[in-house]
């Protein structure tokens, strides 16, 4: 058993160091002898054991004695730990590739590949929106029983559907938005956009305006929406700039007046509030929350994560 462990350990270390490579070669010879039912008489096992014992002996004679006595058992324990940790590492790498986090989809534990946890950062929802929801439990985030028919939709007849729930004022939503657009375009997926005012009323005016544009001018909504996500948020959130922004999308004075009228109407307020209520049924706990074929991705993930979800490159 120590030979096998040594072969794996020195084999990996040997990638970087020639001296370890020589040990790996010795270990291979030893393993080969053992699997062909011959004694490993290369002295390799004793060499490794001797070195280990002395390292421990220099610190504690008692521990060295224990290690010597139970060397085979320790070897097995370390072997099992090594196999376990190797599987864990591969699982972490896989998770990081397909979910953007070593710990799994939307899991926020430490990940060596994403030490700052950027791929899971979300803008927590405001007071009103969190009422009745179970927070930070990804498995509860779902589209089941959620009616998305009132939200702007691009139906292209695809079997894949992407739902983006974001907030104009939220940095993480703004970060994820271009990747979602790219995904939808590259994969030719159906696309539903939903605005969620995660930071409360600061986005109300803009959300109402966007609602009215989407309701009355569907053809201009998507470019308008992209503009809101890609332009400086302080500028777009400033109410006095709304008219100027609308002008950029070739709305004439009359149309702008109608949009503003719509945005400030009680009906729009009710409709937008109804949309938020509907979104709360998803149990979402932050923005952005993206559903790709009903699977929830919370936080701005790398583009490959979204692409993997569409490509079905997810095994567990």
């Amino acid at each position, binding site marked *: 058993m120590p030979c096998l462990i040594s072969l794996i350990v020195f084999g990996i270390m040997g990638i970087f160091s020639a001296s370890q490579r020589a040990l790996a070669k010795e270990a291979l010879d030893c393993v080969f002898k053992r699997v062909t039912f011959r004694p490993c008489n290369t*002295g390799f096992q004793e*060499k490794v*054991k*001797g*070195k280990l*014992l*002395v390292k421990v*002996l220099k610190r504690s*004679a008692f521990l060295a004695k224990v290690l*010597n006595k139970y060397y085979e058992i320790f070897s097995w324990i370390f072997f099992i730990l090594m196999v376990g940790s190797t599987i864990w590492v591969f699982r972490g790498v896989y998770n990081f590739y397909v979910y953007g986090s070593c710990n799994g989809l939307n899991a926020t534990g430490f990940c060596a590949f994403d030490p700052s946890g950027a791929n899971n950062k979300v803008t927590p929802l405001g007071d009103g929106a969190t009422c009745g929801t179970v927070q930070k439990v990804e498995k509860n985030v779902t589209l089941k029983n959620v009616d998305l028919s009132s939200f702007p939709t691009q139906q292209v007849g695809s079997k894949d559907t992407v739902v983006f729930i974001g907030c104009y004022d939220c940095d993480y939503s703004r970060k994820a938005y271009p990747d979602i657009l790219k995904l939808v375009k590259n994969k030719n997926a159906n696309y539903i956009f939903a605005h969620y005012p995660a930071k409360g009323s600061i986005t109300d005016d803009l959300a109402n305006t966007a609602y009215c544009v989407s309701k009355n001018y569907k053809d201009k909504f998507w470019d308008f929406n992209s503009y809101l996500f890609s332009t400086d948020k302080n500028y777009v959130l400033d109410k006095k700039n709304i008219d100027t922004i609308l002008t950029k999308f070739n709305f004439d004075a009359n149309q702008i007046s109608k949009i503003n009228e719509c945005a400030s109407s009680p009906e729009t307020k009710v409709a937008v509030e109804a949309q938020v209520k509907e979104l709360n049924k998803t149990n979402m706990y932050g923005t952005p929350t993206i559903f790709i074929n009903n699977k929830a991705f919370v936080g701005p993930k790398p583009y490959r994560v979204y692409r993997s979800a569409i490509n079905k490159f997810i095994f567990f």
Partner: protein
Amino acid sequence: MIDTDKIRSDFKLLNGKNVPVYFDSACMSLKPNCVVEAMNEYYYEFPACTNRSPHKMGQKATKKVEEARKSIAKFINAGSEKEIIFIRNTSEGINLLVNSFNFKKDDIVLITDKEHNSNLVPWLRLKEKTGIILKIIPSHEDGTFNLENFKELVKGAKFVSVVHTSNLDGVTNPVEDIIKIAHQNGALVFLDVAQSIAHQKIDVKKLDIDFLAFSGHKMFGPTGTGVFYGKHKLLEELDPFLVGGDTVLSSTYDSYEMLPSPEKFEAGLQDYAGIIGLGEAVKYLSKIDFRDIEEHEYKINKYITEGLQKFPQIKIIGPADPALRSGIINFYIENTDMHKFAIMLDELSNIAIRSGRHCVHSWFHSKNIYNSARVSIYIYNTEEEAEVFIKSLTKILGIL
């Protein structure tokens, strides 16, 4: 008496930081600075061919190589430097003999049961190829030479090829008696003095040795150097098995005229730097009284032997009396791989000893002993080092 401080100052390795406790001189001795410098001098100042190049550098190289030959001849009291043949090591010397001597089918050759592979395998090969009869002289239980056995076995033998001091247990065979008895029975004697040449005086005339061989690397000399000695008359009778450049006086397309000894045995360009280094090693060794070497080694051997005897699980190979084991203490613990000991001593206290079967596999197989750990002492070792060894071993045994 050996002045170890003075001796140690001659070895770069033994001065400075992280100085090892070197107890592996039976395998390879350390090299004094003068040997390394002599070799460097050749490479830096006159790196030329000998015996053929007429220029000053060639002349100097020839002079230095022949000086080395003379020094060695004097060192072993050979009749003439023409009896000194430069070889790579003892193994090559024995192969030279085995392949050059006119052995015939059913010739009886005697060797001991503790021969190094270099004095066993060539004879086994010769047995396969020529059909000689190879007989093994069994030792006493304690590893000492059984002269009575030998007296019986030597009858009718053509050749006796024995080790002088065994690298296995340090036992020195009674070669004076062996040679006398062999000659009385009409047998020639080859002596493997690889292990003894650096530890005791060898006088080929006094011992009346027919052939002997030793390596440079166990006697302060460079690796890849050695000497084969033969009585001049016997050398003339040997038919060299390796011929070519430097071995002939002249040649035509269908004939050649061989040179006399030693040239006829030294085919091709030699390791001149090594030979010069070996000459320097012999000069260095000649300045030391062999009685002092034996006394020094005995003192340290006794200390270590007594230290080992405190552990009942440790078994020393060979006689219990350190006086009979030269500078060698070879020990083992039953059912234990002694490689581990050697490695642990190295890791724990920077002590270099040898572990394994010491190229005497045949003996280990016959005794059913897996391997052993061998401490071998030389003049640069000190009692303090022996103390460190015993302390470290005690520590290791405490956890095993």
